């Protein structure tokens, strides 16, 4: 738990997040219009989305299924009866003048998410609810000097609003929560979690209290923070702002604030008094949504293995360390890649290579597992060469570099470059003898107690063998010679 150090003492953050996750589906929540990202403005708008007279919403069963899947993935209660309400407000990108949402009776109730923190500990964060609602369109203020343009492609797209309990205590936890939630939804295939394209957006609720206090302070809501990094920056800024206010004898006003990415600060948008009166009431165009328990059970049967389960299995079946397992399961693609590499091989070695060299290379190249230049099969081949002692781990790193550059297979590169490891005792012994003779002074020093020189001899031998000497064999022989 990270506390904020103020002038007068330590302060604790209390953070709750509201995430708007776009449901993966090929049609909108209440219309048949397409939902693909990047279409020409107003190319994906039905008469329902544009709220033409006499148009009526019809629920898209696929979106309901996705919400239930997500609920099940969050270990949450599924409400067999839920109600769609109208949230009434006027805006140009909200054609009907109301958003269809779920207010009092959401489709999913209480659930939880387990966070794996960097220090190896884990924390359980409560999910308050998940409900289905429509997205609004997009107002574009930069197309004309005196008019606003409206793109309704997004209007009516299905969102899941996922509300957490105020259980988080640091920006790190908030970040871990978002990553975990995103991973779960990606595993489930219910939301692509792409924050840049706006398919996952986050509002942060934050209040501060003195360390040890149990009463909640007054909170501010920071709207539409659209990356995990910004969420953490906004929390950092806002927590200090509130502490300064409180320590200065002022009060925090309950208000909605906006995260300004360029200035790196939060700014007041509207106060509680200016808050809209949304005049929620049940949408009379829609009947209450009733689900069959058997249908829910059937969906449950089709859930994939989720990150937590996968992590446990990796630890159990491959003997991985908790941290490595956590890193690998964070993205389904990484986990799948790892399993393909580890299949029939040394799991720990495979994990080291995937999380180490492989992720490092992807990072450097700005690529993802899915468009990686090295396939799982190719990396597996490299791991095989290490396991059967054809090459050393160190040589393997060079081979991997070459694989990245040339796209050639590991075995082919080893043959081509003559990197096969030398395990021939005679040849290694010969090299050792040469080195020991050449550095008789150092041998004497070693023998008089300067143990650290052992590494020096290893290095020298490796140098003469071009790094190909089998390290285990070399170590053993060298020790024998020096101690004789």
């Amino acid at each position: 738990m990270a506390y904020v150090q103020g002038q007068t003492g330590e302060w604790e953050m209390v953070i709750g997040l509201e995430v708007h996750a776009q449901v993966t589906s090929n049609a909108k929540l209440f219309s048949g219009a397409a939902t693909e990202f990047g279409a020409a403005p107003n190319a994906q708008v039905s008469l329902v989305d544009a709220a033409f007279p006499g148009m009526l919403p019809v629920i898209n069963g696929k979106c309901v299924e996705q919400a239930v899947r997500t609920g099940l993935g969050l270990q949450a209660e599924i409400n067999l009866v839920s109600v769609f309400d109208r949230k009434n407000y006027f805006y140009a990108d909200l054609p009907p003048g109301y958003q269809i949402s779920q207010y009092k009776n959401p489709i999913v109730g209480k659930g939880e998410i387990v966070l794996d923190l960097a220090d190896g500990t884990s924390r359980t964060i409560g999910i308050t609810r998940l409900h289905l609602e429509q997205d609004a369109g997009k107002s574009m203020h930069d197309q004309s000097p005196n008019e606003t343009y409206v793109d309704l492609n997004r209007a009516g797209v299905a969102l899941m609003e996922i509300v957490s309990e105020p259980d988080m205590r640091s920006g790190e936890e908030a970040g871990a929560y978002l990553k975990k939630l995103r991973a779960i939804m990606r595993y489930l295939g219910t939301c692509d979690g792409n924050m840049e394209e706006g398919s996952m957006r986050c509002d942060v609720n934050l209040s501060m209290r003195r360390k040890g206090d149990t009463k909640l302070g007054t909170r501010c809501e920071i709207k539409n923070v659209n990356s995990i990094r910004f969420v953490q920056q906004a929390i950092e800024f806002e927590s200090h702002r509130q502490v300064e206010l409180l320590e200065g004898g002022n009060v925090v006003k309950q208000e909605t604030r906006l995260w300004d990415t360029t200035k790196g600060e939060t700014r007041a948008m509207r106060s509680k008094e200016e808050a809209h009166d949304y005049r929620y009431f049940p949408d009379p165009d829609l009947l209450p949504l009733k689900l069959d328990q058997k249908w829910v059970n059937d969906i449950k049967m089709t859930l994939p293995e989720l990150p937590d389960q996968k992590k446990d299995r990796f630890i159990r079946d491959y003997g991985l360390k908790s941290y490595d397992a956590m890193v690998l399961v964070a993205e389904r693609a990484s986990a799948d890649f790892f399993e393909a590499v580890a299949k029939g091989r040394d799991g720990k070695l495979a994990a080291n290579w995937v999380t180490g060299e492989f992720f490092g290379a992807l990072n450097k190249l700005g690529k993802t597992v899915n468009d990686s230049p090295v396939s799982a099969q190719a990396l597996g081949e490299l791991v095989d060469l290490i396991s059967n002692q054809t090459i050393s781990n160190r040589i393997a790193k060079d081979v991997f570099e070459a694989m990245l550059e040339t796209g050639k297979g590991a075995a082919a590169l080893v043959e081509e470059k003559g990197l096969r490891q030398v395990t021939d005792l005679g040849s290694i012994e010969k090299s050792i003898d040469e080195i020991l003779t050449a550095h008789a002074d150092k041998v004497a020093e070693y023998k008089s107690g300067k143990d650290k020189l052992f590494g020096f001899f290893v290095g020298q031998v490796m140098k003469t063998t071009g790094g190909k000497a089998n390290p285990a064999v070399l170590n053993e022989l060298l020790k024998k010679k020096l101690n004789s």
Partner: protein
Amino acid sequence: MSDLTDISVTEALVGLAGKKFSAVELAKAHIAAMESARALNAFITETPKLAMKQAIESDARRAAGRAGAMDGIPLGIKDLYCTKDVRTTAASHILGEFTPTYESTVTQKLFDAGCVMLGKTNLDEFAMGSSNITSYFGPAISPWSGKDPVKANRKLVPGGSSGGSSAAVAGRFAMAATGTDTGGSIRQPASFTGIVGMKPTYGRCSRWGIVAFASSLDQAGPMTRTVADAALMLRVMAGFDSKDSTSVDQAVPDFVTALGTSIKGMKIGIPREYRIDGISAEIDNLWQKGAAMLRDAGAEIVEISLPHTKYSLAVYYIIAPAEASSNLARYDGVRYGLRVPGENLINMYENTRAEGFGKEVRRRILIGTYVLSAGYYDAYYLKAQKVRRCIRNDFEEAFKKCDAILTPTAPSTAFAIGEKQDDPIQMYLNDVFTVPLNLVGLPGISVPVGLGSDGLPLGLQLIGRAFDEMTLFKAASALEKAANFNHKPPFMAGT
């Protein structure tokens, strides 16, 4: 008036089938009648060209042996139904020249059955009214005129909100018409003009493509000169529609088969609470007369109780405006219809909606916004929904004792344009007998039974169980036969 305009739909179909006349002749006669009746302002938009085109196609279909259930029948379509390529106004200025690119499900069904559209009929703005006075296009006028000295020299309302439809059907310049009924908008104008008006069970007809007033109450229905015509036309209009989540997947029976069958042993309930204060002796007498007619036809009259009925109007005037305030939010000047520019978005909304909506619509939007507001929601909207549940229970109990319920349709005969206009409450009282059905979704039909002392028509309402329109048509047909209402309005188009 030509003979062709004074016959019923059922008679016309016989004539068409027997080649006594063609759909084109029928359409021409009605177009001529419609043009001669312009003084009644029953149509907002006339579509004679479309009617002729449809009539020609109808004749071709009939010649090819492919005639639909209502092939060649010229109809008035309430201007709340969106009609493809024909301006749709909801009698409001705010829709401007709005011309839908789509056809409402119900009008599509009518056209698929071969109907011919004469034009779009007048109504109260957004169907909010009981007089057709609130139309932006001016009031529709009843073809009736009263004998009493006050009413004799004044123009009478045709009822509302489906006033253009009732005027056109009663005045013989549409053979039948569509209406919509949110609180009595089909039945009350039917009663005022001496025709039959049927509001089916909520969910029976699709609402898709009908401009919404109050979603949980709105229902489409036929307005005709005979019960048989209503049965025929409802069968065409009704049916499940996957585009309307509140439409109900129930088989649509052939209602016509119910007509003229015996009602012997049928139990007709008379709700004692409907003897509201101030009910006129005339209405009360007519009601008793209607009960006697049904008894004579073999029905058993039983007294029933609907104790929460007295709250119906209060509940209605919370729920209907609440839903309307939200349903009408889409008329904002952004995408279609009227736009009155402003300095900024809020100004544009204000200017557009202030100019686009009439006084009654604005009043209801304000009431609806108020009852949904934070701090008032529980006291008004939520409570109204609870009382609505009580009213529903009343009907459920009542239908354990009877098969249909008989009540007056409206508390009076038609009033004159200008009357009751300064007092909205007086106006709202018009719907006292009709509103409870909308609140609980039950079907009701108004059948003309007699004339008041002022010489104006009066109807009685029969109420049925949900999706039991068959029983309702059976009883209505018996009542129609016994009442033998053959009075005609002084104004008949073309005479």
